């Protein structure tokens, strides 16, 4: 006797429409969205596209000749960010699998951290004015030995989007300026601070918080929202999203437009990572099949170098030299590394299931020398450590242990930003 196939399920748009109408009718709004919207809009929404990445603070300093942040000490800074990282001969694209373990650390975690309202930068201690322990959002070291940091806003429901003012400290830790800024960024050396003012104007400040200039990007078709603004050496770039997306590159000194790319066929929805030295940006968008695509684009010429369209590999950033890209997987723990030019796979980092309870893929970062990737893992004993995994050897070693539970650990991006982490 043949099995009876169930009848084809009929479902037409009318039925879907009726259901949606019925579901919508169940929604009840209590109160008023206005106060939170007004409060949020008055504050900074710092939205760094590049997720925080781990770097040994001292290791960042030493290869580039940057002195540790002793108070009042003058730093020697690299000429431009493209010189960051040693020249590394990449191995041929032979995939290496590295396993990150929660092993014995070599010492204390070599990254800055916040504990009890005090920012620990190497041997330097900087008291910060934060209303609560988790009120700290991000920071950057400045060229004059000072620090720029941003607190979270008071709107706890938008904790990770709503930021307080950008506060400028001098090398003695004194507050010298506060600015209401969105999309805050510094150039590599920390001599210039860029951001979007509440008025929507793009502004540039020096390390003391003094306004150097304002400029406006090109007129857009319809209102456009800045989703990204970066100081790139002598230039500044802004990504605007409205009815049409725009990518504007301007001269930081004069505000003169250098490049304007517009249209969904040229500029994608999101700018995910930038490498200034190679003028590269990774953008993300949706293609015709609904699968999101990533494009590696030269933001000066508009040339698209390559792309890939899968939800599996989500890019996080470039190596210091821009010769490889690293990223995470949204649905499983792991980090991948591939060559910028042709996507040749170089390394896969996976957690050791025997020792690792949690793998913090989204806060991975390249090592300052460009030879590997730093990852954070929490062991089954609850201890969080930072491990360094080398591309050429596929070996990982545990560098340091995160501070205790009272501390809010955070991470340094290769280009000078520190961002609150997830641990």
């Amino acid at each position, binding site marked *: 006797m043949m099995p009876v196939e169930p009848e084809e399920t009929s479902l037409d748009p009318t039925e879907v429409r009726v259901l*949606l109408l019925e579901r919508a009718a169940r929604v009840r709004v209590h109160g008023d969205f206005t106060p939170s919207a007004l409060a949020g809009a008055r504050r900074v929404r710092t939205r760094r596209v590049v997720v925080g990445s781990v770097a040994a603070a001292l290791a960042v300093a030493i290869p580039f000749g940057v002195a540790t942040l002793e108070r009042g000490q003058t730093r020697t800074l690299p000429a431009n960010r493209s010189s960051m990282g040693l020249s590394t001969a990449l191995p041929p694209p032979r995939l290496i699998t590295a396993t990150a373990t929660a092993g014995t650390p070599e010492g204390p975690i070599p990254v800055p951290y916040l504990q009890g309202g005090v920012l620990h930068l190497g041997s330097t201690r900087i008291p910060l004015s934060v209303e609560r322990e988790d009120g700290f959002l991000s920071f950057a070291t400045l060229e004059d030995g000072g620090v720029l940091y941003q607190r979270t806003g008071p709107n706890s429901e938008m904790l990770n989007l709503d930021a307080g003012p950008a506060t400028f400290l001098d090398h003695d830790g004194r507050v010298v300026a506060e600015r209401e800024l969105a999309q805050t960024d510094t150039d590599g050396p920390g001599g210039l601070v860029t951001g979007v003012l509440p008025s929507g104007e793009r502004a540039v400040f020096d390390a003391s918080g003094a306004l150097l200039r304002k400029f406006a990007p090109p007129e857009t078709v319809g209102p456009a929202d800045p989703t990204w603004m970066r100081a790139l050496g002598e230039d500044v770039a802004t990504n605007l999203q409205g009815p049409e997306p725009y990518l504007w590159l301007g001269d930081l000194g004069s505000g003169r437009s250098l490049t304007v790319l517009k249209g969904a066929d040229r500029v994608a929805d999101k700018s995910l990572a930038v490498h200034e030295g190679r003028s590269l940006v990774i953008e993300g968008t949706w293609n015709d099949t609904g699968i999101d695509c990533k494009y590696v684009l030269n933001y000066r010429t508009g040339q698209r170098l390559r792309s890939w369209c899968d939800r599996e590999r989500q890019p996080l950033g470039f190596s210091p030299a821009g010769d490889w890209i690293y990223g995470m997987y949204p649905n499983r723990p792991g980090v991948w590394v591939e060559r910028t030019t042709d996507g040749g796979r170089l390394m896969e980092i996976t957690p050791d299931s025997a020792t690792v309870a949690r793998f913090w893929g989204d806060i991975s970062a390249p090592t300052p020398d460009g030879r590997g990737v730093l990852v954070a893992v929490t062991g089954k004993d609850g201890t969080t450590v930072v491990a360094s995994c080398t591309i050429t050897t596929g070996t990982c070693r545990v560098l340091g242990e995160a501070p205790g539970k009272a501390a809010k650990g955070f991470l340094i991006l290769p280009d000078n930003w520190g961002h609150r982490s997830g641990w």
Partner: protein
Amino acid sequence: MGKMRSPRDGGRETDFTAYVRARQDSLTRFAYLVSADPETAKDLVQIALTKAYLRWDRICELDAPDAYIRRIIVNEHTSWWRPAWRRREVTSTPLVELSDRAAADGPTHDADLWAHIARLSPMQRAALVLRYYEDLSEAQTAEYLGCSIGSVKTHTSRAMDRLRSTLKEATA
């Protein structure tokens, strides 16, 4: 909604407040359908209104500020890049709630269908909501989603195919 009056007439904040109070229910219902979750809907509406206020001088001059804000809601939700550490603070009094009928849903066809809709990809669900709830044309939906008309057709047909398929499996 018709064209907003100029902020010069009554003050930017006053205008914005009036708009929010008049439209927040509608925006929230839309956000709930797009996200299939009341807490996410609340977040989306807050984000969209915050962004809107930053640009209110220009938005209030549009013929359809609602459409602009709904587009923000859709874009925020369909963006795959959401910080892994985003925390959701649960307040003592939820701003957005579903009526008791939702909690009392038993295993009905409609409850099943909604559960399957909630499991669609963000883009597929957004396409269904825009096409069948908002009753937008394919061209209008494409403008909302920032994609081609062909993509809208694909998102919509694949969403319906998937719903039919999962309902069929549930019946089998």
